[in-house]
């Protein structure tokens, strides 16, 4: 930002910042979650959500209510909010919004490629795509047979082009390659991804060298931590690597030992929520928009989790949602 940009921030983005803060205030509170957990059926859930900022977003759904319906409607709602922000934003905030959609677009592309591999119809997969990452060329993904094809034909017009440019090879597209591609693309949330990649690679045929190429080359772990991680062979070793870092040490300590405790992923989610909430403590920056979207997503995950637990009558784990502070 320019020198003294705070002075002019409100001229261009003040309205949206106010709006996003208002939206953040509408997130479900702890009390809401307590109530939601008590719900017996999805209908109860719907009634309770009606008293929150969600309003009667499910009013037009015909019975019976399903988890996926709730999920789609919630996504639609988030999407419409996001679209509103985006349509009312000025540069450079609008570019920021475009960047925010990139991760969803990558996810969608990968999803479609996987679907094409498994010979599923595009329509079927389109439903599963995240609405925030929609773009017109998306449906043509399955035309491509090689990654370079994909890049040259489909993605070159999209905002994704600069990201894909570097990681396109002439390999044939199979599942492993797609997964590798995805991990090459994700350059954000770097440290978490490095940990998760390591965790997931235990017990697979992925070699240590290959694993190292997947790691993003940024973040706090780069470069020492990543080298150590590449050598790790089990969770304990990974934990030992994390202990060198003040941020990750408490997270790994919070992870339960397999039976009933929290998973590493949950712990990371919690940490993320906390960071996102902290983003609201300062004014005049774009982070709040990102944070809000992420918090809303987490909230949606929570609701879906609770709804799943309710519909499957699996109440023991219903409290495993991640509350937004």
């Amino acid at each position, binding site marked *: 930002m320019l020198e003294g940009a705070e002075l002019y921030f409100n001229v261009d983005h003040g309205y949206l910042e106010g709006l996003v803060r208002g939206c953040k205030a509408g997130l479900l509170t702890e009390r809401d979650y307590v109530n939601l957990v*008590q719900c017996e059926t999805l209908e109860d859930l719907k009634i309770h959500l009606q008293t929150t900022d969600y309003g009667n977003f499910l009013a037009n759904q015909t019975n019976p209510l399903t988890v996926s319906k709730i999920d789609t409607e919630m996504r639609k709602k988030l999407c419409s909010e996001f679209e509103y922000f985006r349509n009312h934003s000025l540069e450079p905030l609008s570019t920021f919004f475009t960047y925010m959609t990139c991760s969803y677009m990558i996810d969608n592309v990968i999803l479609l490629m996987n679907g094409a591999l498994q010979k599923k119809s595009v329509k079927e997969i389109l439903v599963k795509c995240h609405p925030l990452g929609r773009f017109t060329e998306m449906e043509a993904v399955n035309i491509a047979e090689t990654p370079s094809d994909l890049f040259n034909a489909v993605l070159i017009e999209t905002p994704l082009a600069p990201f894909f440019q570097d990681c396109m090879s002439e390999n044939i597209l199979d599942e492993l390659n797609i997964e590798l591609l995805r991990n090459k693309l994700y350059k954000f949330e770097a440290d978490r991804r490095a940990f998760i990649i390591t965790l997931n690679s235990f017990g697979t045929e992925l070699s240590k060298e290959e694993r190292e190429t997947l790691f993003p080359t940024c973040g706090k772990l780069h470069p020492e931590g990543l080298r150590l991680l590449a050598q790790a062979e089990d969770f304990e070793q990974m934990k030992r690597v994390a202990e060198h870092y003040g941020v990750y040490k408490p997270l790994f300590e919070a992870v339960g030992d397999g039976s009933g405790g929290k998973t590493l992923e949950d712990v990371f989610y919690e940490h993320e929520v906390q960071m996102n909430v902290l983003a609201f403590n300062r004014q005049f920056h774009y982070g709040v928009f990102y944070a809000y979207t992420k918090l809303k997503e987490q909230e949606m995950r929570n609701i879906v989790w609770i709804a799943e637990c309710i519909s499957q009558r699996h109440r023991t784990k219903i409290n495993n949602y991640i509350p937004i502070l």
Partner: protein
Amino acid sequence: MGSLFRSETMCLAQLFLQSGTAYECLSALGEKGLVQFRDLNQNVSSFQRKFVGEVKRCEELERILAYLVQEITRADIPLPEGDASPPAPPLKQVLEMQEQLQKLEVELREVTKNKEKLRKNLLELIEYTHMLRVTRTFVKRNVEFEPTYEEFPALENDSLLDYSSMQRLGAKLGFVSGLISQGKVEAFEKMLWRVCKGYTILTYAELDEPLEDPETGEVIKWYVFLISFWGEQIGYKVKKICDCYHCHIYPYPNTAEERREIQEGLNTRIQDLYTVLHKTEDYLRQVLCKAAESVYSRVIQVKKMKAIYHMLNMCSFDVTNKCLIAEVWCPEADLHALRCALEEGSRESGATIPSFMNIIPTKETPPTLIRTNKFTEGFQNIVDAYGVGSYREVNPALFTIVTFPFLFAVMFGDFGHGFVMFLFALLLVLNENHPRLSQSQEIMRMFFNGRYILLLMGLFSVYTGLIYNDCFSKSVNLFGSGWNVSAMYGAAHAPSERKKMVLWNDSVVRHNRVLQLDPSIPGVFRGPYPLGIDPIWNLATNRLTFLNSFKMKMSVILGIIHMTFGVILGIFNHLHFRKKFNIYLVSIPELLFMLCIFGHLIFMIVYKWLLYSAETSRVAPSILIEFINMFLFPTSETNGLYPGQEHVQRLLLVVTALSVPVLFLGKPLFLLWLHNGRSCFGVSRSGYTLVRKDSEEEVSLLGSQDIEEGNHQMEDGCREVTCEEFNFGEILMTQVIHSIEYCLGCISNTASYLRLWALSLAHAQLSDVLWAMLMRVGLRVDTTYGVLLLLPVIALFAVLTIFILLIMEGLSAFLHAIRLHWIDIKNSCGGTQGMFRRPKVPNDKNKSN
């Protein structure tokens, strides 16, 4: 003074509703709009409440009704809006209604679905014909302009692409044709080129008429395209790309005959579809028309039903589960009606045990209810805009009825304009039952709602206009002016007196541009004009100086009186709430502070008016200087207004100075003293209150307005009032802030009342300018053309008068009057608290809140 002076007395009643009859009872109560319910299940989440199932059913019905209304409005069928508001449906009918609605919905959905399908079909066929029509020209052009098409030498100059010749070549030439929406053409072409690496030829042309999109129903521009490609692999890709861009693809005929056949087939099918579609639409319309008859009342009924269940959700169950207990606030005057409504409800449902009610004593502050009628409503709204008074507080609206139009008129004073405004308001009032008026749009509605305010404002303006003697900026000489110009010539005076006076003669009149009448010459001033300002001032050049002095003094006097009145209203409140100490420690110092400074000012103004006449006016002291000297204690002696003025002023200043510390510290110290245990005087007093409060009835009546007082009787243990702890610092802070605000406010508000003068001046000047710029021009032209010119001039004058002087100026005076009332209301009102909300008013708009 009745109900407008204070809000209604309320009581908390417990209703015992037999579970079988609760619905009917509440329905009867709701139709009357008697009570406000209290939520007894506040800590129960919404989906765990008793009647959540019924609420859900209502929501389902609402959903169906919303769907019906949407379909009806889409079909442009007028919704008959019944004036009558039907009562909530009896429980027996609900099921029937639900079934009916559901059946209707299913039928409607099916018919609409069919219709949509047919429509989509039709659109597709239309698109197809368009495509055929446009692509025919493509092929011809292809052939004509690209004769050297290398891959297909056989094409040469044949009129049509010969399919068989292609097969001869061993290659398979394929065509894909269809429609694509305008926005996507460019991206589509690019992608096609990239994917197929140029092995395709894309021709497209814009369709001249926009068509509806069969999927979204939007009317947009389309492009017709034709892709020719060679080879199956590419064809596969092309099809995928078309899918991706949501093109509408139609089979492309290979030969001319085929094309013709298809075209003919299409035409007949389109004809068929039209007739079928027509019939379907007719049927749909019939169904919708039938539904439209009852849908409006149904919507209201369902809303009422939902509101009833919401209220029932607020009730708690008694132990036996046989009856519901509701707690309601009810005006005491309506208790009888409440009982009747309960009986009626029980009777309707045919219950064996009647529902009944029970008044329970409470210490909570009841909600405020002020009943209004169509006349007082507007004024009450003005007051409510500043805040709703707490329970049983003096309601300033009563006085606003007079003060508001009066202050407005002081600023708007012109009886011509006032009369026009009065006539307009009168027109509204006389036609108030006219349906067009009550359903009018925003701005007109605003005037309509404030018609009685306008009426009074007009009347008062006529009055002040008469006082100012202003009618469209001209004065009216009704009674004959009190000034006599001829006396200035002095022929009638005795010669001995003549020497002392400055008399006029011919040369004086001829050579002076401005002449001054001297009231001290006998016969020139023959006593005041009977009503208002003498019309001769309208001709005088020093008119403004004279009027300014008069209006400025007048506005200060009015302002001080108005503010004092506000403080006095506050005394009424303290008396009513039995907080005598507030009178001694707050109101009286406040009054002293104001009156010692500004009261004295008023006294000086009036005194000067009365004491000095034309003869002595030259020695009259300036009030401004006197007033300033009051604070400065000048060393040099001035000749005051009256003997001993200096001493009186000193005394007043001392009183003012003394009242300030009392105002700041009096109340907090007194409360502290009360809190720390009183002296023997206090004990006897508390004994008295103890006896008084033993009576439960009284307790309920007193409510919590004297919580503060009760607070100090906590040690007596006779009340279990839950109130916050005594916090001296907080009370001190509040009082100090309040006092500072008041003291500064006294000065700034007095200045603020000068707007009365400023606005009335502005109004008079503006109307004067309008007259001078327009009417005078018209009146000065000579008689032959003058008549012709005057007509448009008068029209323009009328329009400008209405828009600038009446509407614009009126609006500004209105806003300033509102601002001035804020001072008054702030002085009189204490805190503001919740308003009484009628839970289920029969009208569908303000239901349930």
